[in-house]
Every structure is written in structure tokens, then in C-alpha cells.
């Protein structure tokens, strides 16, 4: 009995990977063929790149501020306060910027993608697209994946800047660091690779969030309950994938 349930679980897992791979292959192959739905791509770019700015900005600001305070608590014990600007910068650009941005976008946009596509699925709007001779993968999925992959790194960059600014505000105005020294320490310890590695992570996470959002939307069935379940699965699976891939990418890009 135990072996049967293990076997069933393994088959289910492999079948899910197979389905996801087919979904991804079809979306990308069909999406790369002309003609392109520029309007859809533009709309998704605005959704991801522009409308996510407030939530991403706030997250970055508060994280940068809290990070500086926490670092001060630890570093003051070993009189290494001067390292705080560089630690905050490295943490924001390499790790917190991409991960937090991706998690916020997964919660905001991944969920909305799943709910939108899922509702279209259960109300036969995706069937209607097909019978109007429009490939739903090309029209609905590819523009989202493309926009997510391109525009999440931009969000990460903005997140980095706001996060570092948050650290600066706390460091200079609350902990009374010298402003010129804080800025100098931040800039002098920054390398191009710190920022680039974060942007690479951002592109990968953007791709994952949009793929999972669309895939779970396509899997929706059984009305509103099914759409709700798909939305939860989408956010949970993309969050886990983000954290797992973050670990792998950190080893690769170290």
C-alpha cells in the first residue's frame, strides 16, 4: 500500500513536469513565430513594470531601513559600523532585491494572471479564442512570459536603489552616520557583478512567476472553487521555485 502511494506520487510528479514542459514549449515556440501581439505585450509590460512599482518600492524601502538597523545592532558589537553601507548594498543588490521583488510580483501579478486565465478557461473564453482562430498560448501566455522576463529586472534595479536609499535614510538621519562617508562606502564597495547577478536572478524569477501564473490558470476547472485553488497553487509553487532557484543561482553566480 505504501509503495503504491509512493509510486502514484512519483508518476503524478513526473506527469506534472511533463505537462509543464509541453505547456512551456508550446507557448514559446508559438509565441516566437510572427505575427506578434504587440498590444498584449505592451499591456503586460505596463502591468508588471509600472503598476508593481508602488508595492515593490515600499517593500524595498522598509527592508533597506530594517536591514541597516539590524546590521548596526550586530556590527556595533565588533566596532565594524563602517561596513554597514557595503553590507546593505550587497544584500540588496545580490539577494533581497531580486527575491523580495519576485515574491511581491508573484503575490500581486502571478495570482492575478492565474485568476484571469482561470476565469477565461472556466467561462469558455479560451475555447472562444481558439474557435476565432487565435492561438491562446500566443495571445495570452507568451506576452506575459516575455514581459515578466524583461521587466522584472527593471523592477529589481529600482528595488535596489530604493532599498539602498532606505538604508541611507536610517544610517544618516537615525544612526547619525556621516552622509558623505555613507555614500562613499556604498559606491566604493559596489561592483558591476553585484548588480548584474541580481538582474540575472530577476529575469529568471520573472520568467518563473509568469510561467507558473499562466500554467495554473490553464489547469483551472470546476468553476470559482477551481480558480481559487489554482490561484493558491500558483502563488505557492512560484514562491517555492523562487527560493529554490535563488539558492541554486547564488551558488552559480557566487
Amino acid at each position: 500500500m505504501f509503495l503504491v502511494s509512493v509510486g502514484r506520487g512519483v508518476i503524478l510528479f513526473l506527469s506534472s513536469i511533463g505537462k509543464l514542459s509541453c505547456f512551456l514549449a508550446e507557448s514559446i515556440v508559438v509565441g516566437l513565430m510572427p505575427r506578434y501581439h504587440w498590444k498584449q505585450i505592451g499591456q503586460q509590460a505596463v502591468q508588471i513594470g509600472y503598476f508593481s512599482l508602488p508595492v515593490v518600492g515600499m517593500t524595498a524601502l522598509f527592508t533597506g531601513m530594517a536591514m541597516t538597523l539590524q546590521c548596526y545592532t550586530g556590527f556595533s558589537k565588533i566596532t565594524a559600523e563602517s561596513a554597514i553601507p557595503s553590507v546593505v548594498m550587497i544584500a540588496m543588490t545580490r539577494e533581497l532585491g531580486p527575491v523580495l521583488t519576485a515574491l511581491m510580483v508573484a503575490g500581486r501579478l502571478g495570482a492575478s494572471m492565474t485568476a484571469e486565465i482561470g476565469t477565461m478557461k472556466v467561462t469558455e473564453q479560451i475555447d472562444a479564442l481558439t474557435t476565432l482562430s487565435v492561438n491562446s498560448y500566443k495571445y495570452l501566455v507568451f506576452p506575459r512570459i516575455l514581459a515578466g522576463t524583461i521587466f522584472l529586472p527593471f523592477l529589481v534595479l529600482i528595488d535596489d536603489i530604493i532599498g539602498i536609499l532606505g538604508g541611507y535614510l536610517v544610517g544618516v538621519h537615525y544612526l547619525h552616520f556621516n552622509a558623505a562617508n555613507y555614500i562613499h562606502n556604498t559606491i566604493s564597495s559596489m561592483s558591476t557583478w553585484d548588480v548584474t547577478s541580481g538582474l540575472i536572478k530577476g529575469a529568471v524569477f520573472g520568467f518563473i512567476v509568469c510561467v507558473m501564473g499562466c500554467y495554473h490558470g490553464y489547469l483551472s476547472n470546476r468553476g470559482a472553487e477551481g480558480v481559487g485553488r489554482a490561484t493558491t497553487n500558483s502563488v505557492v509553487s512560484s514562491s517555492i521555485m523562487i527560493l529554490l532557484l535563488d539558492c541554486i543561482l547564488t551558488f552559480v553566480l557566487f
Partner: protein
Amino acid sequence: MPYVIEVENLEHSFGKKPVLRGVSFKIRRGESYVVIGGSGSGKSVLMKCILRLIKPRAGTVKINGQDVSSLSQKAMYSTLLKCGVLYQGGALFDSLNVIDNVSFGLVYGCGMSKKTAYKTAMKNLEAVDLGPEIARVFPAELSGGMKKRVALARAIATNPDIIFFDEPTTGLDPITTGVIDNLIVRCTKEMGISALSITHDVASMKRISDTVGLIHDGKMIWEGSNRDLTTTDDPYVRQFIDGSPIGPFIRS
């Protein structure tokens, strides 16, 4: 080519549960064929198999003489341009207004310019008795009957040879049902479009059908003309038309 749709021994199942069990029928050019049957009898699955929205397990479907299972994706899209579909709930795109919904297939399916597509869409809205004032309204602001009319305008926009109607009058009041039925009859008789309708509304079926097929438990158990409906003594047809709670449907 006498037949626009030929279905032979169509079979499909969900898991181990058979839904279609060897369904066969043919629809002639200009004919209005209505499939009737109880809820869960396999009517909607039949329509989706014909349109290749679901891949059937066995059997063949030919649209305009072409076996749809052997068509490439591109060829299937060309075939689908000749098929209009009116879905049960309308399936209008929520994010688009009425005019964008009606012109959608023309712009994205046929590659028509937006300006020309809008002109055609306005004519189609007129054909279903809707005025230009509704063009910028979103589907959420429409009543059930209006949604069906907009969906019908979208279905006929690409000038199809065949229209599929999935429960066109479900959930509508008797007067709106009559209006939708008249529009369907107008499409088939005046525009010469063949139609495959799926319904369990007996009054509607009598108004719009040339030929009727009764599907039960995944099988086509009776087929006859509109006139045969009143004369047949088939117990399944009689029970379905009379709406009697006692009869072979209940026993099976």
C-alpha cells in the same frame, strides 16, 4: 459537397467513464441540425470534439470534407474561420468592449484592419438588432439576452459556413428565447448558414430545427426530421418532448 459536417463512430471518455459511444450523423449544407438530450448526456462534449477543442478517443469528424484530426494547426485555424460558435454563457471577452469582441476574429483571425473590422462588426450588430450605442459597453454591463446577441454577432462576423450553438437559450426568459430563436432561424434560412445546435429546450428545438438527433448516455438513439417529432412513437423522444418524469430515461 453535400455534407458540411460528417461525424462517424465518435467515441470519448473522461477517465474510465465513457461520454460518447459511437456517435454518427451528417449535416447537409444549409441544414439546421439540433442535438437534444438531457444534462450530462454528452452533447457539449460532442460539439467540442467536432471543433477539435477536445481530441476524441476514436472516430472521425469531417468539416467541409476535411478530416479535422489530420489537419495541421494552421489548417485547423483556417477551417475554424469558417465556423462560428455561440457558447452557452456567451464567452465574451470581459476585458474588451462589445465592438472589440465582435471584431476580434476579424482582426486577429482574418488579419483585417481595425477600421474595416469595426465597420463589419457594426453591420453584424445591426443584424442581431443591436444599435451603435452598445458598441462601447463592456460585457459585464449587458443582460443575458444581449450577451447572447453580441455573441451571435461575433459568431457570424467572419461570414461562416457553419454555426455551432451551445444551449443558445438556456437561462433566458421565453420572450428573449423567442428573439434568439428568430435570429438563429434568420442566420440559417436567410444567410444560408448550416447550423448545429445543442439544446434541451424543446420549444426552441421545434422552432429552429430541420433535423433532430436525440443523444442519450453518449449514444445517438434517435434521428428524424422536425415533422417526425410529432408523429414518432419512440418512447425516449416522447418522454423528452412531453417532459414526463416517467419513462425510459428514468429507467436507464
